[in-house]
């Protein structure tokens, strides 16, 4: 795929500033850090090392010992998301601009087809929007909002032809896009066969809708009703269920938006038991908490509305950062989806109508640096892993993205560990009127951002071009998730126990109950059983003499087969 990408890239028109040299930087990958110069040409990293021989006239950037890291990958954005006739404020231009300003050089957006509509059409629509406007490379997840045979074919097509390897399903939003357990089972089975990643919005939708009507009934209509009707245990419950279904179907699971401690705990437990599951906390859950839902200012409280909601427990961000540092949570996104106050006010009398979404694409990397690395929880290599490398691995884009190596895309960031900035809506790139991290002082920020081999951020100035972002196709069966899955598939072959035919008496019955009719009941299966403690050495009670037999209730009709009973099945 690397070769493929090189060819793909050569078709892009070259510009004169395409040759770049970063001198004197410390390269930080997810596995090691080392001092070296980097030479880039045609949007690719061509050489890494000391004293590089480079052509003349190359623009040189002095890193002065600062960290050079792979550009961030925001694995979860929802730019330009349609909601009831309106769209979210930040479109692909605005959104990717914010991303670049924060050191993120690639985003993965969610295609959300309206339930009942075609996935392909939605995909094409999103791709068109992004191709027109995106300022950085992007890729797409597709949400599966209903499930039938047509969708199956479309998913198959998307995986094989369209470069989509991850699909999100919903356990929430009852009567809209929520999937039943059986549907989840089918989808996971299907994705596991195709090499896809099952992403899950984990919340118990049925209970939520019950709780919502209860809240409205007792007169709670403000944004605090949002968090009260979506308590974190419903998130944890759904995560637990999703993990179970994924483990049954042997499908890699990816939990989007881990917002609470208990949900994160379930994920770490599952990983400890060996399940292939990835957790994605978002900038909001890593940086702030849900106490703001009780703000007296309606508009402010409404700005925090997202699902699952931010946890009112103020220790949550710290806890999630810890799990991120320990590797129990794998990647970070932002779920960036902003609405104006007027749009949020659609739900001014009823919290269930407030459009859901928070900002975070710009703040994501700085937040993690500030909350995890400067506090000593996480080292710089892990920082690269959770902001970039792991995402690239899950999307099967590694090492093209997520690594500074010869042949990789020239998406990199010179990271200033000492820069301090205060987050405010006045200076952020997003079009939103409010920033949920408003007033927060964050240490660590990008000094220089290079995207596709071009400098897009330098000295605080953004130079972005709308429409240069390319769609990066993701291929199925990412090793990061599927190596284990493949090995387990081979082990998990179930075998029947070879037995003689049961030829004892059979009670007469009528199938009045809707029992599962046996499709094709084969009676003599093959091969060895999984485990057989009793093949030998275990004798049954032994044939008792008739007078030993306990009294049996009479009056039962017994069907004795013509051949009589054989000793295979007799017990006494």
């Amino acid at each position, binding site marked *: 795929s690397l070769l493929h990408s090189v060819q793909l890239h050569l078709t892009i028109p070259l510009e004169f500033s395409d040759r770049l040299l970063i001198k004197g930087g410390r390269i930080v990958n997810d596995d090691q850090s080392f001092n070296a110069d980097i030479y880039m040409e045609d949007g690719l990293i061509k050489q890494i090392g000391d004293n590089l021989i480079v052509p003349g006239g190359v623009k040189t950037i002095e890193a002065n010992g600062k960290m050079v890291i792979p550009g961030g990958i925001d694995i979860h954005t929802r730019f330009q998301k349609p909601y009831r006739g309106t769209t979210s404020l930040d479109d692909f231009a605005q959104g990717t601009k914010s991303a670049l300003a924060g050191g993120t050089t690639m985003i993965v957006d969610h295609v959300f087809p309206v339930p009942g509509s075609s996935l392909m059409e939605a995909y094409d629509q999103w791709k068109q929007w992004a191709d027109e406007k995106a300022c950085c490379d992007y890729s797409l997840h597709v949400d599966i909002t209903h499930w039938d045979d047509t969708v199956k074919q479309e998913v198959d097509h998307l995986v094989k032809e369209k470069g989509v390897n991850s699909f999100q399903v919903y356990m929430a939003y009852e009567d809209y896009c929520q999937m039943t357990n059986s549907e989840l089972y089918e989808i996971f089975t299907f994705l596991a066969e195709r090499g896809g990643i099952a992403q899950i919005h984990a919340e118990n939708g049925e209970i939520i809708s019950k709780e919502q009507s209860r809240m409205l009934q007792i007169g709670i209509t*403000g944004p605090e009703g949002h968090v009260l009707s979506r308590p974190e245990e419903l998130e944890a419950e759904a995560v637990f269920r999703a993990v179970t279904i994924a483990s049954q179907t042997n499908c890699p699971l990816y939990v989007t938006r881990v917002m609470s401690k208990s949900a994160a705990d379930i994920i770490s437990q599952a990983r400890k038991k060996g399940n292939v599951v990835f957790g994605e906390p978002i900038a909001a859950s890593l940086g702030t908490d849900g106490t703001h839902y009780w703000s007296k200012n309606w508009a402010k409280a409404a700005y925090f509305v997202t699902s699952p909601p931010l946890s009112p427990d103020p220790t949550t961000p710290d806890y999630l950062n810890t799990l991120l540092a320990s590797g129990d949570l794998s990647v970070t996104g932002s779920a960036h989806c902003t609405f104006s106050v007027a749009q949020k006010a659609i739900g001014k009398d009823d919290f269930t109508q407030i459009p859901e979404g928070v900002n975070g694409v710009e703040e994501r990397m700085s937040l993690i640096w500030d909350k995890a690395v400067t506090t000593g929880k996480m080292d710089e290599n892990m920082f690269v892993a959770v902001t970039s490398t792991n995402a690239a691995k899950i999307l099967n884009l590694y090492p093209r993205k997520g690594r500074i190596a010869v042949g990789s895309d020239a998406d990199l960031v010179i990271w200033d560990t000492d820069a301090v900035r205060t987050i405010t809506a006045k200076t952020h790139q997003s079009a939103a009127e409010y920033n949920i991290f408003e007033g927060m002082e964050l240490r660590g920020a990008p000094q220089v951002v290079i995207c596709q081999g071009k400098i897009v951020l330098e000295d605080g100035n953004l130079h972005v071009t709308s429409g240069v972002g390319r769609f990066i196709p993701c291929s199925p069966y990412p090793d990061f998730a599927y190596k284990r899955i493949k090995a387990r598939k081979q082990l998990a072959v179930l075998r029947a126990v070879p037995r003689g035919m049961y030829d004892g008496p059979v009670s007469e019955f009528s199938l009045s109950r809707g029992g599962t009719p046996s499709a094709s009941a084969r009676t003599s299966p093959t091969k060895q059983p999984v485990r057989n403690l009793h093949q030998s050495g275990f004798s049954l009670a032994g044939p008792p003499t008739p007078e030993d037999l306990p009294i049996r209730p009479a009056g039962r009709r017994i069907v004795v087969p013509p051949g009589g009973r054989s000793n295979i099945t007799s017990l006494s």
Partner: protein
Amino acid sequence: MSDCRRQWNREDELPVYLAGPISSGPNQRKSYGMFSSVEGAFDSKTIDFDSYAVGRKGSRTPRSRSRERILDSGDPVEKTPGDAREGSQTNSTGEIDGTGTGAEVQFAEEENLPGKDGRLLIKGGRVVNDDQSFYADVFIEDGLIMQVGENLVAPAGVKVIEANGRMIIPGGIDVNTCLMKPYLDTQPVDDFLQGTKAALAGGTTMIIDHVTPQPEGSLLEAFERWQEAADKKACCDYSLHVDIPKWNETVKDELEMLVQDKGVNSFQVFMAYNDLYQMTDSELYAALSFLKELGAVVLVHAENGDLVAKEQRKILGMGITGPEGHPLSHPEELEAEAVFRAITLGNRVNCPVYITKVMSKSAADTIAQARRKGSVVFGEPITASLATDGSHYWSKNWAKAAAYVTSPPLSPDPTTLDHLHTLLACGDLQVVGSSHCAYSTSQKAIGRDDFTLIPEGVNGVEERMGFVWDKAVAMGKMDENQFVAVTSTNAAKIFNLYPRKGRIAAGSDADIVIWDPDSVKTITAKLQQSAAEYNIFEGLECRGGPALVLSQGQIVYEGGKLQVQQGTGRFIPRKPFPDFAYQRVKFRNQVKNSQGVTRGMYDGPVYEVPSMPKYITPSPSAKTSPTSHQPPPIRNLHQSNFSLSGAQIDDNVPRRSGHRIVAPPGGRSNITSLG
């Protein structure tokens, strides 16, 4: 006849001793004397225990004394009456009078009729309750325990049983039997007669059976059918759970009637059996909310039915049709998942949840974790999960493998039973049932070509107490008091039978077992009471068993012989709101009041929503100004000294135009404006 009995059992006509004692939770444990742990239980009784108690109070705690006792009674069977009395001497401070000398005779006087007037005296035993053990005599009259105390003098003509220092424990309560559960056209081979006989032979003196109505049938009718059958046949007291096969409005009325008039306080709901009994999460939420208002205990069959159905189809599709397909299609994580979901639902609704049939380590762990987080949840492992494992499903013998089929299945992990015993001993699991539901091999053979048709059920009502003793007490995991708690007392508390059942105290029912911790027997279908051809514990050795069983004050089992009378079992009605489950729930109800935030009206711009799309929960009546009295919010960092961003000066940001904004006539107020 059965009618009279029911009449007697009506709540209002219950004897006085049952009327009040459990209403006050914390007091209930207060011990007013050595032997009297139920407050007021000995009021107006003949013996003044308090006078005995005064002199001893300071010396040693009752518990440590009982520990020494265990050491004393080395071989209780061989012990002479003299030894037994010597044991009680150390206990009683100078209360030795002449009565002890004649105690070795079995019958005090010439009368040989066993308790002609229903009077009995058990002498020289060690009474073991769930909280303490002590040496005492127990005097029984009319099926009730009249006195518990030392050196009781038997009136003339009273039969005396010499316990010789052996353990006297409250009779076991098996909270889960299915003696009439219909499957297709057949019924289990153990009916109420056969089943209660087996129970009594194992030291269980009360069962709670599951009424399983047909999905479309009436709960009340099914309940009455069960009650009638049990009244005719049961040999020991019984009570009934009612399973809820479907959730709808009719069921609500019936449930109310069952709770208020029929003495049923526990109902089972199913998360498994797709397309048959299974309830969706919304239905479960509704059911739990409703049952909580009634004060009932919700029993949950926890397995994810949707996934089980999928797995069954998959396994059948692979050509696996034998009983091994059963555990393969019911993996234990589906059990754990459902347990987790049930607990979440219980927490949301604030309703006690009782998990029936805990069969796997992961399900048990989920319960233990939830209890640690404060959930009101109870777990019930059954005899089968405590004494055997699921490796037998792979037996070459079809009939043997099929005998183990039950749902959730036995875990193929052979370390499961040990783990479950550990959790039982430490209190993370509370009750032991048997889920006894025995089918004959020919009935099981209905599913010979398709494991999904094998009728589900295993035996265990007879072996239950023995195996808990053998695997937990004899192994040193559990003490004898906890043994009484998990086999009897906890069940009585959860289902509101305490202290009538589950305790040896004056006023309680005379359901008593003299337990022999040293008897050893090998379980075999040849010797069992059950009518099933196969016993899933076949060949296992079990240490500990009842030496003598009293049910309703009558000796029903002695020296290996059963003397039961069909139809003597009474229906025991149970009141709702058992303290053991509901006390915490009541307090949480008072605490858990969510309140809205008082805000000014939002009067900023509102985006005009064009059409009516789908996914909006219609707000029934959107009130804009919530309640009048407002407590401070949980935490509000921003009530003051926080200024919003102010006017946006970012020039280059293209504000998206073309949005229709509806500005209210009054303009924007500063309450809501952000910029």
